[in-house]
């Protein structure tokens, strides 16, 4: 009997947590498509004529050059740059490091590991100071470089752990075929590492897409803001046009979730493989 009871409670917990996870997304989409008057009159009702204008209102909301469309472009520029920088620099380095003698290898690892623990709070003010000095404020690509570099340590460690277990026979076969080291890396190693690169890249993407701590400092002008910062103009004001606010939340929150559903295999694998680090 206790066994049945335990099963019951664990199932209840699992279902309860699933509901708690999904309901906010449900309500964001429900309210996003609902006329504002209906949200106040009957928030839980699911029968209503959809107000698609909420979405166009949200998309065009904001002043002048600072609309959701602009935020999206800025976020794409920022995240794209971050991915190019972090993967472009860290992946080759992580691969070639496996050939270093143990002592040098350990030194590299310790240095990179130290890079994962520097708290962002220590970085934002010097970042602002330096970016300001070099006229790089309010440039999404320049901010993306900072995000990319901050993602290098994690990318490096996760990729390195993958390359250490890479079958040496394949590398040796390439060498016997007379390929140079660089060609072995490009023609043999990279194509076989796509899965891992995608996994690690998604972790960077999620973080750079959502973070506002660095962007709020480096991208202060309205027309340079990414979604994570621009969305803040929706915060705190829940008295006027709730439908538009929630349509805006849907536009911001749903694309990453859909991308994640498509690529979830890689994400869960990436976390299970490299486990803990951000």
């Amino acid at each position, binding site marked *: 009997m206790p066994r049945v009871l335990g099963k019951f409670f664990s199932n209840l917990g699992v279902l309860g947590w699933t509901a708690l996870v999904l309901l906010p997304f449900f309500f964001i989409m429900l309210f996003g498509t609902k006329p504002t008057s209906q949200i106040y009159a009957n928030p839980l009702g699911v029968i209503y004529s959809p107000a698609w204008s909420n979405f166009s209102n949200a998309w065009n909301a904001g002043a002048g050059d600072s609309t959701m469309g602009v935020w999206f472009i800025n976020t794409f520029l920022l995240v794209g740059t971050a991915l190019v920088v972090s993967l472009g620099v860290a992946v080759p380095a992580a691969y070639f490091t496996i050939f270093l003698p143990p002592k040098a290898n350990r030194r590299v690892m310790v240095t990179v590991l130290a890079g994962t623990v520097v708290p962002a709070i220590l970085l934002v003010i010097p970042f602002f100071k330096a970016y300001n000095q070099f006229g790089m404020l309010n440039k999404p690509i320049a901010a993306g470089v900072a995000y990319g570099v901050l993602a290098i340590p994690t990318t490096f460690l996760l990729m390195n752990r993958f390359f250490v277990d890479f079958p040496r026979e394949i590398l040796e076969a390439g060498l016997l075929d007379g390929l140079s080291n660089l060609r072995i890396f490009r023609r043999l190693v990279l194509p076989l590492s796509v899965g891992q690169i995608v996994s690690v890249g998604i972790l960077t993407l999620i973080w750079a897409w*959502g973070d506002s701590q660095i962007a709020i400092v480096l991208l202060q002008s309205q027309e340079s803001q990414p979604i994570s910062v621009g969305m803040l103009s929706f915060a705190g004001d829940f008295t006027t046009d709730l439908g538009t606010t929630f349509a805006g939340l849907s536009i911001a929150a749903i694309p990453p979730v859909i991308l994640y559903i498509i690529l979830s295999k890689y994400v869960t694998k990436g976390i299970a493989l490299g486990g803990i680090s951000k």
Partner: protein
Amino acid sequence: MTSLKEVQSKESQHPKQGRVFRSKKKKIGLDGTNIRSAKFALIPVFVLLFLFLGLPVINSIQLSFSRWGGLGPLEPVGFQNYTDLFADEQMRYSSRITVLYAFSVAIGVVAIATVLAAAVSASVRGHKIYKVIWFFPGIAPPTAVAIFWSSGFQPETGIVNTILGKIGLGGDHAWLASSETALYPVIFVGIWSAVGFAFLVILGAIEQIPISVREAATVDGANIRQQFFKITLPLIRPVMLIMLTLQIIWTFNGFTVVWAMTTGGPADSTSILPILAYKEAFRFGRFGTAAAMAVIAGIFLMIIGSIGIRLSRSEQR
């Protein structure tokens, strides 16, 4: 030299193969010339990490001993910023709630994630679906989910209050409007959005426990609860400790959720250190004091981190 050692060790395993490689000097080639490539590939890593991590940390420390308003040269003031901060009531309050916030979220996250991982690994149906769904809150932009929740916690109109009202628990809780209670919804959202990641990590650890161990326990007649407390929990404790440490650090640093929910208010009652430092620098233009706050936070985080790593190491032994 290592390459040679490797060849020799390989030789002992596969005598013939090893000799072939050595005679052609191919194996040595694989490691030898790659060392040069490794040096080349590592140069940008170290240059960038120095520019974007090393220098800023040095810069922060330097700033913390100066007065700077955002323009012009730094004016050295010695320990002034630090002594000011230690005497400051808001700084003491913020430090306290930052620790409270970080520890509550981290403990909540690890506890819930462990229970969920144990439940799922005990073969609840739809294993894979939960792995995907429970990570949604971690995927969606923190700004968006934080705004959703802060609207939900509004009295009367918020969805949380609406539902509480419907089930008879009252629909007029104005948690976010009172400095007494504003931190609780923030803690809740912090937990809600972070459980998915910790769940995946802890489930990964549970799944690494050999099936034979569990089968042996089942044969010995251990029930689910005994298995959890006597076998699963002790074996995953190192991972739980690391997760707890990291979660404390991440939450301590977490700016976005709190900022989007309360911007530190009302009356700075939810101004955790990152928010206090941000306001100090970018609202009030006191960059020196802000840098000193950041340094104090950084030292605290380093202490937490090293304790956490040491604890989880000693557990593993």
